[in-house]
């Protein structure tokens, strides 16, 4: 493989256990240049742990996670390579959005002008000097997204980025991600909202019980399920999970 062909994101046989419980087992997938990959799976499937291992936040027990052929911790200027939205974005409620972004800019050696640019991009310029404690969940998510794109990265890794966003915000996010990928960027998007993933993803990685059940293109997934991504998703995730849900429902009756 030549240098130009190195995958932006490569996950190889990742495994991780916490206190003896296997959370991620032999997970492998890639995210190509100009592609949006949807990481789908039920709660506790191992999506977040996989993303955190990819970003060097959790050390894997086995396997590799490489960003342009390197472990994340070996990137010399990580914020210009990967932008990430995890959890609530690590926002201190006592700071303003502008203060938060200036700190993020200082961490990544970005300019104050870039802070103003990303505030404009996410539509928060007018509210940038309000304290984050007064923000709605959707506004906090926009701040987190603004921080992720500060370094104009080549890759975006987003864990449930639509959480709290209103319909207009979700529409904006989908357009932004599509445009980002169309300009050669790579996106790994973890989401529970299948309809949103279906609208923008190029590839699907379905994960359940810590294992990859399917890694395919969206087109193939839809073709395999008569155009219904929900059907595809439910057929891929653990049957035991569905059985468990059915058992619970039955017992409740």
């Amino acid at each position, binding site marked *: 493989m030549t240098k130009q062909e190195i995958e932006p994101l490569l996950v190889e046989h990742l495994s991780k256990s916490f206190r003896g419980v296997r959370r991620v087992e032999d997970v492998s997938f890639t995210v190509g240049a100009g592609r949006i990959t949807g990481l789908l799976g039920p709660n506790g499937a191992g999506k977040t742990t996989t993303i955190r291992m990819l970003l060097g936040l959790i050390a894997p027990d086995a396997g590799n996670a490489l960003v342009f052929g390197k472990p994340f*911790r070996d990137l010399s200027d990580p914020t210009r390579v990967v932008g990430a939205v995890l959890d609530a974005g*690590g926002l201190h409620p006592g700071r303003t959005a502008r203060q938060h972004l200036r700190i993020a800019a200082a*961490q990544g050696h970005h300019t104050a002008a870039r802070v103003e640019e990303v505030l404009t991009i996410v539509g928060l310029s007018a509210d940038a000097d309000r304290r984050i404690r007064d923000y709605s969940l959707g506004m906090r998510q926009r701040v987190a997204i603004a921080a992720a794109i500060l370094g104009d990265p080549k890759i975006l890794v987003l864990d449930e980025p639509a959480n709290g966003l209103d319909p207009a915000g979700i529409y904006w996010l989908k357009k932004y991600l599509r445009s980002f990928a169309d300009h050669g960027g790579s996106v790994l998007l973890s989401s529970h909202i299948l309809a949103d993933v279906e609208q923008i993803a190029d590839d699907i990685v379905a994960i359940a019980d810590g294992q990859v059940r399917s890694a395919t293109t969206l087109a193939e997934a839809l073709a395999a399920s008569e155009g219904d991504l929900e059907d595809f998703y439910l057929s891929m995730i653990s049957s035991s999970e569905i059985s468990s849900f059915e058992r619970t429902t039955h017992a409740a009756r």
Partner: protein
Amino acid sequence: MLRAETLKLTTIPVTKIAVLIAALGLLATQLISTVLMPYLVNSETTDPEVASELPVIDMTLASEQLAVLNLLGGSGSIGVVLIAVILLGVLAGISDFRFGGMVGTALAQPRRERIVLAKTGATALIGAATGLILAALSVTALLLALVLDGTALSATLPEILGTLGRGVLAITFLSLIGLAVGLLLRNQLTAVLVMLAVLVLEPILLGIIQLATGTLPIWAQLMPNTLAHALINAPTALTGAAATGALTALTALLLTGAALTLKRRSL
């Protein structure tokens, strides 16, 4: 990264509150001992029996004037300043964990020992700045006391600068010790309680040991409060250097532990 960490500390209210509490605590302590107490002792309205029980500071003595410049308050005591400065460091250490900012920091700087290094630099800067504010306040309190007492300044400029300089150094070290404890324990309540317990138990423990053995073992003299006061009250340059060395070693040990723990921790 140093700039980012400094910005973090200067943009959260808790830093300003800790500095304000330290400043008010120092002013209150110094003014009570140098202005209020002499006033009460000399006041005709004070019961003579009560007045005789009150501590009297002879402000004509250089040693008493220098004692007013002790940024931690009385010798060996657990004062408001000491607690506020340690908590300043503790809160600097835990705020990133408490609100999830450590993830963003680790994404920008995956080499976590460098994060601890940057936090150390930023906390040292804020600690030193706090020390300088406290130094200015203590000089103001001393001058006010001298004017009200009608006494001349008898402490020499090198003595004054030396006492203040050692005070600023002690405040800086204490804030760094707080930072290390915050990074090690992560949880705000746990870290604050542990630090308060150490500070409160330290003089009690030392008192018990001294009563029981008649002397203090070396390890007992290496506690943070004891070392900080030993540095400020150092009678010679050599003892000052020894206290500085011991505080440096203690701080470095705790920060190294914090760096190793952070390096291995899942975020």
